[in-house]
């Protein structure tokens, strides 16, 4: 069985997304993390455009444009400004045992692939085979959020998770309705703004962006 060129392209994009998700899990530097996030958005936008082309779904063009504008340009620019103003541009997280996290990541990918197998057999879309990869990138973003201690990488992990969900929606049902997508886009944008304010608040209170300090806020009983 040979597949059409667009289908091959979609599969390639899906694999690139998975690769970027792994790169984000293993990246120590915040600046590179933001670049990777922008790259992930770009791959996502290209993938959505290719799916739109292959399936003749005009609303997917809008979501591709939205992804391009929001996740490749606006959000990385916002994050970039944020880390400049927080003066953590060259911050490195040191407490990371990357080979172990990588092994956990492989296990996560295997779980995701197995979970997605029955679902993708039911789906009738041309993108169904990439559903497993979409789930894997969601779970990997989870993993990234769990393993990080600083606030900014956690937020980037959160945004990457949204990317994974968006990809899952595209591959399972050719994307969500336009209203939902617009709503999510707005949520993500506003969320990033609020996170930005939180960063300053956290740092003002604790002199650091290490979220473990937040545990001090617990009331003593």
């Amino acid at each position, binding site marked *: 069985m040979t597949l059409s060129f667009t289908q091959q392209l979609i599969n390639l994009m899906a694999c690139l997304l998975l*690769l970027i998700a792994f790169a984000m899990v293993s990246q120590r530097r915040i600046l590179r993390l933001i670049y990777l996030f922008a790259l992930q958005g770009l791959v996502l936008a290209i993938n959505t455009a290719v799916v739109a082309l292959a399936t003749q779904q005009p609303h997917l063009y809008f979501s591709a444009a939205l992804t391009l504008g929001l996740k490749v340009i606006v959000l990385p620019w916002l994050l970039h400004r944020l880390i400049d103003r927080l003066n953590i541009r060259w911050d490195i997280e040191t407490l990371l045992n990357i080979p172990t996290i990588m092994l956990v990541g*492989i296990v996560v990918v295997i779980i995701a692939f197995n979970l997605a197998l029955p679902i993708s057999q039911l789906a009738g879309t041309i993108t169904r085979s990439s559903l497993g990869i979409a789930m894997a990138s969601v779970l990997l973003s989870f993993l990234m959020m769990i393993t990080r201690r600083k606030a900014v990488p956690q937020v980037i992990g959160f945004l990457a998770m949204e990317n994974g969900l968006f990809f899952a929606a595209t591959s399972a049902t050719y994307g969500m309705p336009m209203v939902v997508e617009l709503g999510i886009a707005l949520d993500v944008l506003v969320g990033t703004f609020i996170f930005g304010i939180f960063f300053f608040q956290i740092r003002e209170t604790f002199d650091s962006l290490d979220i473990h300090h937040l545990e001090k806020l617990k009331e003593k009983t």
Partner: protein
Amino acid sequence: MNPEFFASQLFQTLLAVLLAPVMLGWVNQCRAWLQNKTGPGVLQPYRVILKLFRKDAVLAHNASWLFRFAPYAVFGCMVLAVSIVPILATDLPFSPAADVIALVGLFALARVFMALAAMDVGTAFGSLGARREMFVASLAEPALLMVFFTPALISQSTALTTIVETLAHRELTIYPSLAFAAVAFVMLLLAENARIPVDNPATHLELTMIHEAMILEYSARHLALLEWAHALKLMTYASIGIALFLPWGIASAGQWAMMPLSILALLLKLLLGSAALAVLEAVSAKMRIFRVPEFLGMAFLLAVLGMLTRLLLGSAG
């Protein structure tokens, strides 16, 4: 078995053995250009090897037969390894005898001889280099096997000639799993051939060297053979990479008319590939030795991901 068969094998092996130092020279030349230096010319490895062959060998007093035998064993292993890989054409009489797993085994055999010989004389540097080499190899070898499994899954065979036949003579399809495997392979190529992120081939600085530390005790013809084997190893890896990931232009069995074209294709691929290798080395910095497991862990991960996507995407992967 017809004589043509053997002629093809002999020609390919000879070509690889003779081309290997030139290729190393070209990589070094490109690196020199990238560093704004004039560079010694592409024939420099040949000059070094010839000079070393003309000199008298000096051996340590307590060197055993192993020390003297190791260069020949290593060189033999590398010649055998390069004869298994289809470089110009896929009709190789050697190929049914040994598949990719045997190829990894050959590399391991050469490495064991190298490490034992390095520890034989009992100097600190030798055993330091041997231990580091084994440390790198123990992580690189499983990853290398994993890299080979992905094309083997696609073509349902572990014999390199069959893999090349399947991959080269079909319509153009994008295999994402092969892309993963290719990235992992490049990382392993750097690690196994003592190139820059893992080891620096141009230094004798005691704290960083791996490969150079092992051959520090050798001189004259032994050293020449080891240098040649080193160049040959790079050549073998390059031709494996070409065979697995860029197989277009390799002639199939019995196509003698294709030979000039495939020689041209090979030279072009090697020229560009080596230049790319030099660029890769120029832009990356040497890693601390304890970062190497991370680097190779990444390679292993990519290779496993390649296999997994192959299994998930089925015939499309």
